[in-house]
């Protein structure tokens, strides 16, 4: 693909903003809470701004990689610092920016070990940005792990239910995933014979079908663990339940997207033949995930478990779209990555607000929250409806695209997935009903509603959802500008 160098290093700044914030935080004292929050908010804000800038200023007509920066890192092994923006990762960068910004706002009231918390959050975010923007396999993987590991500490210190178990499980599971990714990546590196990790260059190399098949399956499952591809999803509900609010937001909102994005960016991009070979498996697992997720979610009573399983289902949709390998499908699934990211962030921030007050997430114990805290429940209900695929929200379009593409390629899977929507609606409404409707639980009636300040991040999220629900073309056009050449490349 064509590359257009950046006039000034936007992406590096985007990457350095959280890093700088982190360094500043290291120098601050634990008791300077406001300063700590402010610094991290500014850091997040700067990166969000830059993400918006890239999203707005990306020239769709020009296409290709833009804002490119390249520096040699290790000549001997052909490692370069190679970042750029195209239609595929611009939405992801925007997503990350929005989620981290709102996440920091959401955790504004955190009092326990504030400094460390924001340090780790910023570290994580740096990793995420790095993954989305880097086009060098080595750096890609490096950032990938940076993004994954802080979860352990974040969950362990600030988490809630069964956190030791969850944190260890999550980290090891994802690391096992990298255990598959490393050989896959290195196999590609070695068999290309180019001695470079530069993805664009590797894309030019002609891998033998065997290599492609092996590498693809390794990469697919390796990254699939993070994308909660069935049956490698069980870490995700447990992890969500244990994680603190902002971490859940980042994790479900952004980290799981890392997995699916990597499947697209690395696995499918570098081994098309492998993809052709395994596509049916992908579609199958994705479909199982979709159906399975909603049905298991139907039986959960812990709010976060419910959301966790809905994420499994929605990520299944993403994966399904990818597996079609058509323009519509990939448009849809990237869009879905974005939409679902925002949506789950909204979910978790609302749940987090309620949980922080009531210290329970059992939907039978809760109830009537529309009366107690109408705004907070409005937020949650919006998210739930978005999850149920109600039009006017971004995710509706994403699902529409994916389903149409899927029915075209895999009719059975497609129809099954569509049918699962009913159950999806059922379990979304079931949660809404038993949490927010009916008569309030007297224990909780004294809690006050979301303050405007804390409402702000949720409003931002809803606004994003609705905006892209009404103007899907802004997103789809962006994605399409990259998908078309992408598929020609395959």
């Amino acid at each position, binding site marked *: 693909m064509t590359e257009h160098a950046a006039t000034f290093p936007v992406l590096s700044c985007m990457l350095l903003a959280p890093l700088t914030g982190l360094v500043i935080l290291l120098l601050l004292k634990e008791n300077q809470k406001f300063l700590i929050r402010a610094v991290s908010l500014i850091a997040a804000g700067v990166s969000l701004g830059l993400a918006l800038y890239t999203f707005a200023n990306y020239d769709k007509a020009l296409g290709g990689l833009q804002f490119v920066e390249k520096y040699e890192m290790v000549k001997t092994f052909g490692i370069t610092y190679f970042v750029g923006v195209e239609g595929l990762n611009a939405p992801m960068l925007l997503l990350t920016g929005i989620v981290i910004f709102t996440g920091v706002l959401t955790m504004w009231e955190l009092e326990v070990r504030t400094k460390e918390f924001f340090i780790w959050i910023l570290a994580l975010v740096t990793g995420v940005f790095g993954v989305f923007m880097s086009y060098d396999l080595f750096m890609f993987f490096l950032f990938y792990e940076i993004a994954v590991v802080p979860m352990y500490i974040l969950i362990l210190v600030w988490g809630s239910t069964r956190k030791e178990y969850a944190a260890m*499980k999550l980290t*090891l*599971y994802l690391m096992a995933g990298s255990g598959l990714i490393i050989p896959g990546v290195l196999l590609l590196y070695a068999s290309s014979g180019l001695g470079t990790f530069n993805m664009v260059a590797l894309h030019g190399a002609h891998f033998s079908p065997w290599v492609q098949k092996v590498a693809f399956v390794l990469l697919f499952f390796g990254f699939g663990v993070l994308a909660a591809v069935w*049956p490698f*999803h*069980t*870490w995700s509900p*447990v992890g969500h339940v244990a994680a603190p609010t902002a971490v859940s937001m980042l994790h479900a909102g952004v980290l799981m997207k890392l997995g699916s994005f990597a499947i697209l960016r690395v696995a499918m991009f570098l081994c098309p033949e492998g993809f052709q070979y395994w596509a049916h498996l992908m579609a199958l697992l994705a479909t199982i995930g979709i159906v*399975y997720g909603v*049905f*298991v979610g*139907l*039986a*959960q009573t812990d709010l976060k478990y419910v959301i966790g399983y809905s994420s499994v289902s929605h990520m299944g949709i993403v994966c399904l779209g990818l597996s079609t390998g*058509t*323009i*519509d499908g990939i*448009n*849809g699934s990237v869009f879905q990555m974005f939409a679902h990211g925002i949506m789950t962030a909204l979910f978790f921030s609302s749940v987090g607000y309620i949980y922080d007050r009531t210290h329970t997430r059992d939907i039978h114990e809760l109830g*009537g929250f*529309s*009366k107690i805290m109408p705004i907070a429940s*409005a937020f949650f209900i919006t998210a739930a*409806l978005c999850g*149920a695929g*109600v*039009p*006017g929200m971004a995710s*509706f*379009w994403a699902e*529409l*695209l994916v*389903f*149409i*593409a899927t*029915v*075209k390629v895999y009719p059975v899977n*497609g*129809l099954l997935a*569509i*049918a699962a*929507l*009913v*159950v999806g*609606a*059922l379990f979304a*409404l*079931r949660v809404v*009903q038993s949490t*927010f*409707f*009916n*008569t*309030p639980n007297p224990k909780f009636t004294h809690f006050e509603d979301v303050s405007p300040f804390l409402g702000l991040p949720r409003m931002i999220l809803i606004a994003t959802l609705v905006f892209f629900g009404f103007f*899907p*073309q802004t997103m*789809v*056009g962006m994605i*399409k500008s990259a998908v078309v050449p992408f598929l020609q490349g395959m």
Partner: protein
Amino acid sequence: MGSCDPVLLACLATVLLPLLAFALIMIFTWRRPNLSLAISLTASTIPVIIAWTLFFKLDVSKPIIYNFDWLVSETVKVPFGFLLDPTSMVMLVIVATISWLVQIYSIGYMSGDPGFGRFYADLSLFALAMLTLVISSGLLQLYIAWELVGLASYLLIGFWYEKFSASEAGKKAFVVTRFGDIGFFMGLVFLTLFYGSLDIASVNSAAVAKSMPPWLITTSALLIFCGIMGKSAQFPIHVWLPDAMEGPTPVSALLHSATMVAAGVFLLTRIFPFFAASATAMTVVLCISTITLILSSTVGMVATDIKQVWAYSTVSQLGFMAMGLAASGLAAGTLFPGYYHLTTHAAFKALLFLCSGVFIHHFGTNDFFTMATNGGRKLYIPMVTITIASLALAGIFPFSGFFSKEAILGALAQLDNKMWLILGLFGAFLTAYYSFRVIFVMLFPKPGAYGKVPGHVEEEAHSHGGHGHDEGHGVPWVMSFPLLVLAFFTCILGFCQEYLQKFLLGEAHPHHIEYTLLFSAVGCALGGIALAWYDWGRKDAKCVGFISKFPALQNFFIQKWYMDHFWRWFLNTFIYGTFSRIFTYNDRRVVDGGVDAVAFSTIGSGRLLSFLQTAFVQLNMLFMVLVLAGVGLYLLMGR
């Protein structure tokens, strides 16, 4: 593009004003009743004006179409646009007017309700969705509006969410209609993939038949009809509509009788040529709608809750419309009869509900026996209007219902198989019976005589909301005004037949009256009324209904043909009982268990291997030597 075009601006205003109102109220003014009311009313009044102006001023004999790109992917191209043709114009007027009337009515009905602002926000949301649905140019846009209408219905049914039954009903409505919509969606997917365009105009064109094989057309048509079944509460997924009466009565009047549920039938008329292209599909429609008609009329006969009666009557009338359309589809007729009935029905059914709303509001009960015994007839305006409406519903000359029903029966009569006609007449008979059952009970109450009526419990009605006023003037004008307007329409619509026909079809068929049909129809209606009189009206009526002669049957009807039981059983057995439980178990035990097993076995193997490090240094050295020897041997062999 032509943003200077006044018609386009009008359309945009019609759609966007309610949206604006919804947003404003939801974000800012939902705590302020009056402000919200003002906003919402403005946003609903302007569309009414627009609608009527367009209806009279605009010449839509050849459709006016606006299309803008909304989403352009590869095969998926979704335009956002408006299609103004006779069909949509009429519906536009209906929707705009009734929702406007209902909003006025609700000022009185909902006064003092804590959720007043929210109520009007939801009404605006509904208006937005419904208007978009009516004038949308593409099926996908229509589907989106369709879903939003469902959403609004969900919010409004569950408006009093503290009531478990209400929130439950809302959920039920959403999920059941969604169940149908899935079919609709699949149908659209098929059309997209195999036909390529979802533009209503082109779907109705003959090109479809050329580019799609018949079986595919039938499949798509039936799939889309699933959506219609859901929305228009056709058997077997009609079960949500009666429960939907949990919502405030204005809502029932607007959504669940006049407009939203009619959207299904509207869709049927919208792509009537497409449906007509497949005889199979039309036959299926005919069967289902007939079953619906009979089922709901029979249930309506035994209901004691006034809203339930009208709810089931709505279901039956929707079935009746569908019958009409299907019949004319099969007999190469026009969409006029069904559509005409839709129009008239919108008026008189809304009227029925609003009247009942007055009673309910006044007596604080839904049981019309109680209302009657508490002197419901003394509320003159509603009493008169409800009687008019019932006459229309029963199909008595000169009220609108008479003409539209007669038209539908005419369409049925054109079928070779007269069985349909007979069933239709039977339905008309039952309709007349149950509607006048209500009316006679209300008019000639017999206190203490209703003890034997199944489902009715003698209760002392508590005057609702502490209105200190005595009967007669107990109705605030904001509530009585809409009644009068609607009553007016109910009376005159019948004589607009030619005009409407001309408007819809371009040319008016000479209205030749088949007297046999006419008399049989009127006969059925009168027979029903007479029976009602015999059972409920006359001085020494037994007040149990003829149906009590057949207790089994009566019970069957009271249990609503056990449809609710069936669905509940289905849900519990399959969804929750089987899939959900199995998958959950599998998730916890098999999938997750497997993961944990791997982890623990790793640790176990570590513990096992740690015994290799014995405390006896010599054992270790022995091991060392042996391994060394092994490697040496391997190398020697490999040499």
